[in-house]
């Protein structure tokens, strides 16, 4: 079952073609990774798919319905949530409040009724459970500004996961993380996939990509230059050269 699909996406910034006729689909319970050199249009693709950019041409479908013109909040409320490359948290708030903001993506869990004590208690319980899932339950009251880089990344993941998304869109979730934090993020991605969440992942670390991705899409200068089952794409010498990973041995 296809969760999110895009056909013929084009995006142009002045004279630069950022996306050139990109097709993509992510199924229920599948991890699709997008790789490619810097400036190949990976983040632009995510921005177009999450309603932050409106593509110049092309069509985007969520669960079979057209969402090409849908703004970011509407997409989020229909189950498309994302994290950012630069890890955008709400700096003046604590970890719990950051996660509670993520509950706005669940239109059933009454943001307007949330001042009622029992509704507030249920929402807080959900947010704490999401923090627990990323291993930060004890730091719920810490202002995110004082958390470590890895912890901040995990708060962002908790904010994305708290509303039970249909598709999780991750922009370089392991960039700058320690090996332990990287493993934690990898496990979270796998756990989400096993629960049936579709995952679209932009990632530089090809080890992570190899460990979690079912399918891979390779972008270069805005165009899809390779794509398919993860193992065969990663084995492609041309792809490895493009991503500057020629020296890395691919595990059998």
């Amino acid at each position, binding site marked *: 079952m296809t969760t999110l699909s895009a056909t013929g996406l084009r995006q142009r910034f002045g004279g630069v073609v950022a996306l050139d006729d990109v097709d993509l689909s992510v199924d*229920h319970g599948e991890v699709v990774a997008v790789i490619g050199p810097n400036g190949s249009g990976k983040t632009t693709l995510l921005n177009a798919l*999450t*309603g*932050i950019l409106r593509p110049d041409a092309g069509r985007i479908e969520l669960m079979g319905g057209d969402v090409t013109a849908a*703004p*970011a*909040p509407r997409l*989020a*409320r229909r189950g498309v*949530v*994302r994290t*950012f490359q630069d890890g*955008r*948290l*709400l*700096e*003046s*708030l604590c970890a719990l*409040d950051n996660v*509670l*903001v*993520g*509950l*706005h*993506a669940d*239109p059933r869990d*009454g*943001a*307007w009724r*949330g*001042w009622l004590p029992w509704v*507030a*208690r249920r*929402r*807080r*319980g*959900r947010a*704490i*459970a*999401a923090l*627990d*899932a*990323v291993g930060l339950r004890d730091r*719920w*009251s810490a202002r995110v500004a004082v958390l470590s880089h890895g912890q901040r990344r995990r708060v962002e993941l*908790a*904010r*994305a*996961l*708290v*509303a*039970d*998304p*249909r598709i999780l869109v991750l922009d370089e979730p392991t960039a700058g993380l320690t090996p332990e934090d990287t493993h934690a993020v990898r496990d*979270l991605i796998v*756990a*989400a996939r096993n*629960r*049936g*969440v579709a995952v679209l992942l932009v990632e530089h670390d090809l080890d992570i990509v190899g460990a979690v991705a079912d399918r891979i899409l390779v972008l270069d200068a805005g165009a899809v230059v390779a794509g398919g089952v993860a193992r065969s794409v990663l084995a492609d010498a041309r792809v490895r050269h493009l991503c500057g990973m020629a020296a890395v041995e691919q595990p059998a």
Partner: protein
Amino acid sequence: MRAGAGGGVAPLDGAALRRLAASARAPVWLRLRLPALVAAGMVPLLVPSAHVYDLARVAATYAVLAVGYCIVLGLCGQFSVAHAALYGVGAYTTANLTTQHGASSATALLAAVGFGLLAGALIGLPALRVRGDQLAVITLGIGQVVQLLFLNWTSVTGGFTGISDIPAPSLFGITLTSYRDNYLLAFAALVIVVVAVELLRRSPLGLAFMAVRDDELAARSAGVRTGVCKVSAFALSGAVAGIAGWLYAGAIISISPPTFDVVLSVLVAVMVLLGGQGRVYGAVVGAAIIATLENALTEYPAGEIALKGAAIIAIVMWRAGALRDGLMRLRRA
């Protein structure tokens, strides 16, 4: 079909949530803020005089206005310079209904809140398109237009001379005529508004406002409808400004357009910034400081002009970040 909650984690039991709620309770000094506010509000009763009561009433009315403005600037991060216009809408609604249509004080209050809400939402519409200093300039223009409306819509507002002989406020059959009664009314309204805005701050809507303030893009991607939030914040602050206008009109007997000028909007912003952006109780302190300064300077017109000029300069410097940089340099030195 959607997946299970937050990673298939068992929901927290009642005891765990209670422990959480207990550890979430604010520190003692924070919990003492409301009692401290009420205690401070009783001080004028210890030194009763018409002058003290009148000053305290102005301070409480300004505080209502400032606490309402906290919703827009403090919580939602939108810089508006049209707040005096909303105050005027509340005051003119009250004055017009009670003098020309024989409405009761309570009806006028409801209408002032309603029109304030509506006017606030309208003033908030430009925030859907522009932000930051551009929004400030547009709201500045809207504020001027509303003041021109007060001046020229003579049949409703009485034009330049305004509206006189506004009856004293009367609620539940009690008419409040003395300086003391009017002060106590304004102070009661302040306590109600402070509690309401604090509740708003802790609600999901208040949290969404703060998300808009901190990072609009992240908020949108988390499902926060930022446009709805901005217009709601303006509308709610307009409703509170309507209450302040009602208090003002009831206490002052006669109102006229010059009161609701841009300088008052700037002063309200200064009150909120004096108290620390976003701090509800801080805004009350800021309002008390500005009201006292203004009162002390009424006999020295040059001093009053200097105060208002300084307020405008302070706001411009704050917008440019110069105030914060200067304070940090002082702290380092």
